[in-house]
C-alpha cells in the first residue's frame, strides 16, 4: 500500500498546476470579458468619484488613481492565495469568499450526492436489466437513456413540483427544510446532521425537501449511467468467462454479480466524468427548487463580474473534482486487482 500512498501524494501535487492553470484562465477570462464589476456594484446612480474610490478599494487602481496592470493584479492575487486567503467578494457586503463558499457548498454537496445516488440506482438497475436481458429490454433501456438525457431540468422539475406539491400536496415546492427544523451544523448536510443529532423530525423534513430535487437531478443523469451500464454489461456478458462459468454450472444470479463487478470499471470512470454534468445539473436544479447551493450563487457572481468570488469558487471546485477523481482511481485499484499504483 506504500505505492498507493505515493500515488495519492503525487496526485495531490499534480493538483497544484491544475489549479494554477484554472485560476490563471479564470482570472484573465473574467477580466477580458466586457463589463466592469464596479459598474455593476454602484449601478448607474453613483457619482464618478465613487467609481474611482471603489476601484482603489478593489485593488484595480493604485492610490494615485492609475489602473494597476493586470499581471500585477494577478501576482497580488496569487500571493494572497498562497497564504490561503481567497479574498473578499466584490459585491454585496464584500464578505470573505471562503465564508460565502462554506455557506453554499454543503447544500450543493448534499443535493449532488442525493441526485447521484438516485441516478446510480436507476442507472445500475435499468442498465444491468437491459444488458442482462438484451433484446427488447435492451432497446427499452436505450430509449429511456435517450429520453432522460434529453430532459430539460427546469421542465421536469416543474412537472414534479406541480404534481407532487401543488396537486397532491405531499412534497414541498422549494427549500431545504421547514422553518425552525434546521439541525445543528456538523457537516452542513442536513440529512446527516439531523441523524447525528437524533432529530427525527428534522430528518424527515430534510428528506421531504430533497426528494424532488434529487429525483429531478438523478433522473436526468441516470440516462448516462444506464447507457454505460447497459453497454458495459452487454460487453462483459459476451466475454468467455461468462460462458466458462455457465459451463461449470454456476447459477445465473451469481454470474450476474460477477458480470456487474466486471462492468464496474467503465461505470466508475463515467461516475468520475459525470461530476461536471452533476454540477451543471445542480445549477439548474438549484434554481428550480430554490436550493441554496453553489450553482445559482456562482452563476449570479459571474454575471456581476465578482472576480474574487468566481476565482475562489473555481479553486474550490477544482479541488473537489480532483478529490473525486482520486477517489475514483483508488476505487479502481480496489475493484480491479490488475490495477496497481
Amino acid at each position, binding site marked *: 500500500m506504500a505505492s498507493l500512498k505515493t500515488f495519492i501524494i503525487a496526485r495531490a501535487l499534480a493538483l497544484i498546476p491544475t489549479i494554477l492553470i484554472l485560476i490563471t484562465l479564470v482570472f484573465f477570462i473574467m477580466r477580458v470579458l466586457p463589463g466592469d464589476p464596479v459598474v455593476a456594484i454602484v449601478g448607474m446612480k453613483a457619482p464618478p468619484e465613487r467609481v474611482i474610490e471603489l476601484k482603489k478599494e478593489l485593488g484595480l487602481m493604485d492610490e494615485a488613481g492609475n489602473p494597476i496592470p493586470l499581471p500585477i493584479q494577478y501576482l497580488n492575487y496569487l500571493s494572497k492565495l498562497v497564504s490561503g486567503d481567497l479574498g473578499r467578494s466584490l459585491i454585496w457586503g464584500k464578505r470573505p469568499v471562503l465564508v460565502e463558499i462554506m455557506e453554499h457548498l454543503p447544500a450543493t454537496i448534499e443535493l449532488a450526492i442525493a441526485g447521484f445516488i438516485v441516478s446510480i440506482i436507476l442507472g445500475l438497475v435499468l442498465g444491468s436489466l437491459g444488458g442482462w436481458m438484451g433484446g427488447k429490454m435492451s432497446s427499452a433501456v436505450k430509449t429511456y437513456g435517450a429520453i432522460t438525457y434529453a430532459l430539460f431540468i427546469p421542465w421536469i422539475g416543474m412537472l414534479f413540483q406541480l404534481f407532487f406539491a401543488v396537486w397532491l400536496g405531499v412534497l*414541498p415546492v422549494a427549500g431545504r427544510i421547514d422553518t425552525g427544523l434546521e439541525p445543528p451544523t456538523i457537516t452542513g448536510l442536513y440529512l446527516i446532521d439531523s441523524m447525528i443529532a437524533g432529530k427525527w423530525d428534522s430528518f424527515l423534513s430534510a428528506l421531504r425537501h430533497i426528494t424532488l430535487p434529487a429525483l429531478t437531478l438523478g433522473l436526468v443523469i441516470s440516462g448516462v449511467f444506464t447507457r454505460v451500464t447497459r453497454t458495459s454489461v452487454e460487453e462483459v456478458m459476451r466475454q468467455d468467462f461468462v460462458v466458462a462459468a455457465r459451463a461449470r454450472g454456476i447459477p445465473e444470479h451469481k454470474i450476474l454479480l460477477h458480470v456487474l463487478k466486471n462492468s464496474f470499471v467503465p461505470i466508475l470512470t463515467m461516475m468520475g466524468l459525470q461530476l461536471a454534468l452533476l454540477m451543471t445539473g445542480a445549477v439548474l436544479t438549484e434554481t428550480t427548487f430554490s436550493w441554496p447551493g453553489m450553482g445559482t450563487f456562482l452563476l449570479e457572481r459571474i454575471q456581476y463580474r465578482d472576480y474574487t468570488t468566481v476565482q475562489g469558487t473555481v479553486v474550490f471546485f477544482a479541488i473537489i473534482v480532483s478529490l473525486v477523481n482520486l477517489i475514483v482511481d483508488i476505487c479502481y485499484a480496489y475493484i480491479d486487482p490488475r490495477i496497481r499504483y
Partner: protein
Amino acid sequence: MMRKYAKKRLAVSTTVATVGIIVALIIGLVGGYLAGSMAAAPATATVTVTQTVGAKTVTSTVEKTVTSTVPGGPAVSRIVIGVTDKVSDIDPANAYDFYTWEVLTNIMGGLMRYAPGTTELEPGLAIGYTVSPDGTEYTFRLRPNLYFADGTPMTAQDVVRSIKRVMEINGDPVWLVTDFVKDVVAVDDHTVKFILKKPVAFFPALVAIPPYFPVHPAYKPKEIDSDQTAGGVGPYRIVKWVRDVELVLEANPYWWQGAPKTKQIVIKFFKDATALRMALEAGEIDIAWRTLRPTDINDLKGKSGIKVIEVPGPYIRYIIFNTKIPPFDNPLVRKALAAAVDRKAICERVFLGTTTPLYSMIPIGMWSHKDSFLEKYGEHNLELAKKLLKEAGYSETNKLKIELWYTPTHYGDTEVDVATLIKEAWEETGMVEVTLKSAEWTTYLEYTRKGMLGATLYGWYPDYIDPDDYTSPWVNTTWTGYAYSNPELKKLLDEASVKPILEERTKLYERAQDIWADDAAVVPLFQGKLAVAVREGVEGVILDPTMLFRYWLIYKVS
C-alpha cells in the same frame, strides 16, 4: 419491415411508460407516507381592523400625529412571505437595493416615514421638525421613550452616530447622505439637527430612507456589517437569518407603536418565479411578493383561495436618446420616434396589463405629474412621426437607419419583446429601419457611461419619493454619458429642489416636464404595477408607490 419497426417502437415505449409509472408510484407512496408527518396549518383568529390613512401638506413647521395605526388584537402565529429577491447587506450603510431596503424598513425606522398607501410623509421616530429660514437646517424632535429591539434606549446620539457611520463607511448609497448633509449634531437627547450643504426641499423624504435610519450600537462602527441582526427601532427584529434561504422576524415588543399583531414573519427566498407561484398554490407561503411573472399574476387572478392585489408602482421605463450621437442629435428625429412609440401595445402584449403607459418621467400618482408627452405627441401618432421625419429629410426611400440597444436579462426576459415592439412601431412609419442590439448589463452600463450607444432602454427605481429623483438623474449626468444636456432645464430642476413651498415646486416641475417632452431626449414608456398574490385570509396588505411592503400591517384570519 415498417410494421415490424413500428411494433418494436410501440413495445419500447410501453416498457418505458411502465417503468415511468412504477417509479412514479414508488415516489407517490413514499411521498404519501411522508406527507403524513406534515404539520397542520396553524390556527388563526378572526379580527376586525380599522385603519385610517391621512396626510397633510408639509410646511415649514410640522407637528403631526401618526395617522396610520397598527392593527390591534391578539397576536397571531406567523405569515410566510416568498420573494425571488436577495438581501444584500442588512446594513443601511451599504444596502442599496429595493428588497433590502424593504427589510430594513421593517426592522428599523426613520425620523419620518410614508403613511402607508400614500406618498405622503408622516412622523416616524420624530414627532416633527422645524426648518431654518434659509432652508439649510432641519431640526427633528424625537419621540420620548424610544427603544431598540433588545430594550436599549435610543437617543439623538444614536441618530448622529448612525448617520456619521454611513458617511465614514462610504458605502454604495452614501451619496444620498453626503450630497446633502454637511453635518449632523445632537442638540440634546431628543433633538437632532442636520446642517445641509444647500437648501433641500425634499429633505424630510430623505430621512425616511434607510441610509438615514438609526442603527443599534452593535453595528460595527467603521465597517459594513452585512449580517448584523441587531436592527434599529422598528416593528420587527430578526431572530433568524440564513442568507439566501430564510429570514425570520419576530414582533418587537419595544416598538413605539406597540408590537405588531402578527408575531412572526418568515421570508423565504426563491430563485425561480415559477416555484414562487407554485409554493403559494401549494400553501407553503401565504404571500407571493416580488416578483411574479405577468403570466403567473394573470393565472393567479382566476384561482380560488388566492387574491391578487395590484397598485401602480414607482418603477418606470424609458428610452434614452444620446443627443451627442447622430442622428439623435436632431430633435426632429427624437420627436418623430417619441411620437411613433406604441406604449399601449407594450403594456398589453408584453406585460399583459401589469404595466401602465407613462407620458412623463414623474410617475402617475406623484404630485406634479403631467402627461406632457401625450399632450405634445399623442399616442402611437404615426402621422406626426412621418411629418417630422420628412422635415428631417427622411422618406420611404431614404430611410432613417438606427440601432436600438437593450440588455437581455437585467429588466427580465421580457426585454427583448419590449425592444421588438418599439422597433415595430417605429418601422410602421415606413421611414425607419431599426436594428436591435443587446449587451449584458455590466457591459451595457459601461458603454452607456462612455456615451457609445445611441438609443438605449433603461428603467428606474426611485431612491427617494420625490419628483427630483425622477428628473435630476438624467440631466447633465455622467452615467448616461451626458446624453441629455439642457442648462435651462438643469437650472429649473435645481431651483425646484431647493424651494420649500410645495405649490411653487409643483409649478416648476410642471414646466420642467413640458421642456422635457419638447426635448424628447429621454422618453418615458410605461410605469410598473406592483402585484402581490396572497392566500385567502391574509389581510392588511397595503402597497403604495414607495414599493415597500409593511409587514407590521399584515395579519391572517382563518
